[in-house]
C-alpha cells in the first residue's frame, strides 16, 4: 500500500518521518520530494538586484524611518511634541511605503506568490496493508497538511 502526505518544512515533518522509521518502515520505502519554490530561481541575472520576497517590507521601513525623523524634528515646534509626532510619522510613513510597494509589485508581477499555506514537501510511503492505519495516524499527528492512501497498486 502507498500513502502520500504533504508537509511544510518544519521540525514536525522530521519527527513524523522518524516516527515512521520507528514503526519499522526502512528509509528505502520512504520517498521525500522537497519542492523547489517558485521565485527562488538560481539565475544570477534575474535575481541579483532583487530583495527577494522581503521587498514588501523595505518600502515601509524606508518611508517609516524618514517620516519618523521628520515627525521628531517638527515635534520641536508643533503642539504635541516629538513623541506623538514621531510615532504618527512612523505609522503614516510605514503605511504609505507599504502601499506603494504593494502597488508597484502588483504592477510589476501580476502573478504574486501568495500560496504560503500550500505543501512544500511531499512524502510517499510504501508500507504493509496492516500498517496503513498507524502510519496515517503518525502523519496526521505531526501536522501533515494532507494525507492520501492510494487505492490501487500494481505490483
Amino acid at each position: 500500500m502507498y500513502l502520500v502526505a504533504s508537509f511544510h518544512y518544519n521540525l514536525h515533518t522530521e519527527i513524523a518521518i522518524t516516527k515512521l522509521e520507528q514503526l519499522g518502515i526502512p528509509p528505502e520505502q520512504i520517498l521525500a520530494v522537497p519542492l523547489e519554490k517558485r521565485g527562488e530561481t538560481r539565475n544570477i541575472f534575474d535575481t541579483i538586484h532583487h530583495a527577494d520576497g522581503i521587498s514588501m517590507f523595505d518600502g515601509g521601513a524606508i518611508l517609516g524611518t524618514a517620516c519618523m525623523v521628520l515627525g521628531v524634528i517638527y515635534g520641536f515646534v508643533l503642539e504635541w511634541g516629538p513623541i506623538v509626532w514621531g510615532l504618527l510619522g512612523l505609522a503614516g510613513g510605514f503605511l504609505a511605503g507599504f502601499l506603494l510597494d504593494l502597488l508597484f509589485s502588483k504592477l510589476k508581477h501580476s502573478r504574486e506568490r501568495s500560496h504560503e499555506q500550500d505543501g512544500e514537501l511531499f512524502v510517499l510511503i510504501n508500507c504493509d496493508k496492516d500498517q496503513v492505519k498507524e502510519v496515517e495516524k503518525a502523519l496526521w499527528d505531526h501536522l501533515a497538511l494532507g494525507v492520501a492512501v492510494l487505492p490501487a497498486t500494481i505490483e
Partner: protein
Amino acid sequence: MQDYPTHIVRRPKSAISDYSLNVFHLRNPLVAAWWSMVYPGFGHIREVSIAKGMFLFIGELLINTLAHLNLAIMYSFTGKFAMAKKVLDTHLLLLYCGILIFAVWDSYRVALEINKFSVLADHENAPLVPAVIGSGGLNAYEKRNPWISLAWSALVPGAGHLYNMTLLPAVFLMLGGAIIIYFSHLLPAIHYTALGQFALAKEVVDWQWLLNVPSFYCFAIYDAYVKTVEINKIFDQEQAQFMKNKYQSPLFKMPFRY
C-alpha cells in the same frame, strides 16, 4: 547517512555557532545604501559585515555627538538657520562627510558582492549544519514567526535579534539602544506625553540624542524581521537537503509502472 562537510566549502551559505549566526541572502543594494545614509553602519550590519558596521556606527555616533550635527539638522529643518550655524562644532564636522559617503558607497558595493556569493552558495548547495550546541548555549535554524520578531523589536530594540539567536547584533542593538534612550531622555518624555504634558515633554528631551532614536528604532525592527525570514529559508533549504539525501533511495518501488 547524511554527509556533513569534511572538505572545505568554497561558497558557504551561512555560518552558525553557539553564539550567533550569519546568512548570505539576496539584498537590494539600494536599500543597503539607504540604511547607510540613515545611519552609517546600518547598511553593513544588515549585510554580513557586522563588525565593520558596528565600527562605522560608533564612529558616526561620536562625530555626530561632538559636532552637534543632529541639533543643526533640527534647527535647519525648522528654519532656524542662525541657530544651526551657531550650534555646529567644526572640529570634526567635515570628517562626517567622508564617513557617510564611504558607508553608502561601501554598503552598496558589498551588497552586490554578497548577492553574487549568495547565488554561488545556492548553486554549490553545500551541506548545511542544522544545529550547534556549545559551551555558550544552543543555536539552531528554526522556523520563527517574523511578526513576533517584529513585535519584540518594537518593544525592546534588539529583542527580535535575540529571538533569532543572532547575538552579536542583539547585544549591539540593546546596549546602543540603552545608551541612546538614556541620553535622549526619551522615557521621561514618553511619561509626560502620555499624561498630556507636551510642553514638559519637549523641555525634558535632549534633542541632539533624540534624533538618533527614529533610525535606530526602525532599523532594529526592520533587520530583525528580515533576518527571521531569511533564517527560515535556510531551515527549509537544510531540510530539503536532508530529505533528498536520506529519502530518495534508488531502491524505492514506485507505485505504478509502465
